[in-house]
């Protein structure tokens, strides 16, 4: 189980010329991407991309629509076995994914959603898995909602359940593709706080795709701007005293016209 379970040896017609390994040593980065190429047609979507993520590091990926953000994330999640490409991807043994939609099974109670596949994957007993699931729900502020149907929760609550589902697996790597994209501004701000708390406690490496420059700056240790399948810029917000300048710089890297106002109204990259 320890090696190459990334599922890329798929039975697909065009196996990717790629090696994938799991479980890097202690001082090595948690995620190592080397020379990663993915192409649906002739134009590569990911173009010889290299990326390292240190253990516990939070990397936010920005990029205009179609720049290959989701493709990169799916490669790390092992969800792209039928996409032609090459390169190496090394990820930790336990990876969790948070999707843009909460992706809860509507026919399973909230707690059952959180512990979906948990007992079998971790060797926990059913009772222990349920206890862990209930604890994770409490962590995201949903104690007492274990027996609710997902359809009875608000969008933000559903996304919190999906966070609990990811965190209860104690992932070493958390992948999130626009996890808060469908939420309103206030809920999103709340989720940022919650996410930071949770990450502080669980300390996984994180790769989060977002359209929101400010979200990236607030949450991430490192912001990576992807353009046409390559890294066009990367910045560590902590290195910047002047957050406005950083913002402007990132927006420029994204190809958004600079506005003279320090806080222009459109905050997000046009999709």
């Amino acid at each position, binding site marked *: 189980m320890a090696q190459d379970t990334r*599922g890329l040896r798929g039975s697909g017609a065009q196996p990717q010329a790629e090696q994938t390994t799991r479980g890097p040593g202690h001082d090595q980065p948690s995620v190592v991407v080397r020379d990663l190429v993915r192409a649906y047609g002739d134009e590569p979507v990911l173009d010889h991309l290299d990326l390292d993520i240190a253990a516990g590091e939070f990397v936010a990926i920005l990029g205009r629509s179609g720049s290959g953000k989701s493709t990169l994330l799916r490669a790390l*999640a*092992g*969800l792209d076995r039928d996409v032609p490409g090459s390169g190496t991807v090394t990820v930790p043994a336990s*990876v*969790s*994914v948070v*999707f843009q*939609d909460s*992706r809860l*099974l*509507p*026919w*399973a109670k909230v707690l059952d959603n959180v512990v*979906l*596949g*948990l007992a*079998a*994957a971790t060797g926990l007993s059913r009772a222990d898995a349920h206890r862990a699931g209930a604890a994770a729900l409490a962590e995201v502020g949903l104690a007492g909602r274990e027996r609710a*149907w*997902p*359809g009875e929760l608000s969008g933000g609550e559903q996304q919190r359940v999906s966070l609990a*589902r990811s965190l209860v*697996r104690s992932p070493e790597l958390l992948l999130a593709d626009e996890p808060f994209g469908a939420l*309103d*501004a*206030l809920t999103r*701000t709340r989720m940022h706080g919650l996410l930071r708390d949770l990450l502080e406690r669980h300390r996984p490496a994180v790769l989060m795709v977002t359209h929101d420059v*400010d*979200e990236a*700056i*607030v949450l991430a240790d490192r912001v990576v701007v992807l353009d046409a399948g390559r890294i066009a810029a990367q910045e560590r*917000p902590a290195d910047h005293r002047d*957050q*406005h300048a950083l*913002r402007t710089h990132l927006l420029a890297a994204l190809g958004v016209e600079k506005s003279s106002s320090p*806080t222009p*109204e459109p*905050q997000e990259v046009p999709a």
Partner: protein
Amino acid sequence: MSAAVTYAGPRSRTLGYGPRTSAAATDIRPAASTRLRLGRPFRGARMLGIGALAAIWVTGSATGLIDPRILPAPWTVVTTGIDLVSTGRLQENLAISLQRSALGLVFGVSIGVVLALLAGLSRLGDALIDGPIQVKRSIPNLALLPLLILWFGIGEDMKVITIAIGVFLPIYIHTHNGLRSIDARFVELSETVALSRAQFVRRVVLPGALPGFLLGLRFAVTGSMLALVVVEQVNATAGIGYMMELARTYGQTEIIFVGLVVYGVLGYTADAVVRLLQRRALSWRKTLED
């Protein structure tokens, strides 16, 4: 931290008109909904038309405007029903009819589910099973009756088999469709949480296909009633349909009416049971119907 401040500024401004917009939307709603809808349902709406028909029937029979040989008076139907029950004739025939449709339903549902699972969960199964069934779909069930009589005679076997055939098709089609239309997003989720194939089927595929199965079951129950009526009028020696056929040869219109009422009650009850089952099993779903 200055980042948080930069962040909070424009955000809170956007928040300003969030609630106001939605309040405006709530204000518009009543007007918009009354314009296109039929208006409020009133109490006993369904009974109104039925009541009117019954009133015509009663007055027509009482005044002698309706010939009792064409349409017996309601009270004749009721007393005939009571007679049939007290002599035990109705129960006897009803028991036989119920047994036939129950057997047909059990066999039909089982076969439909098994075939749907085989076809829905494996490529080979799909290749082998789905084609023939799609061909069968274009042949009306009752057109098979002469063939079934030749093969199985005119006994109970033929009757149960005919009903089962009427039942398995809707079960197969809707269950298969349910299995095949599992949302690809849930397949992806199952991969990321590393579900085994067995767990995937149990947790995702089967519950996802349940609404389809239950819809199929509603059609199946209707189908079994239809098949029951037809087979009972073909060389039967017992059953509600037989009782009605016999009444026809003696010109006992009121017995035919009792039979119709029994069929109606049977059909309605069966559908109500399935709907109850549906509500129970799909309580997670906020349905627009019902």
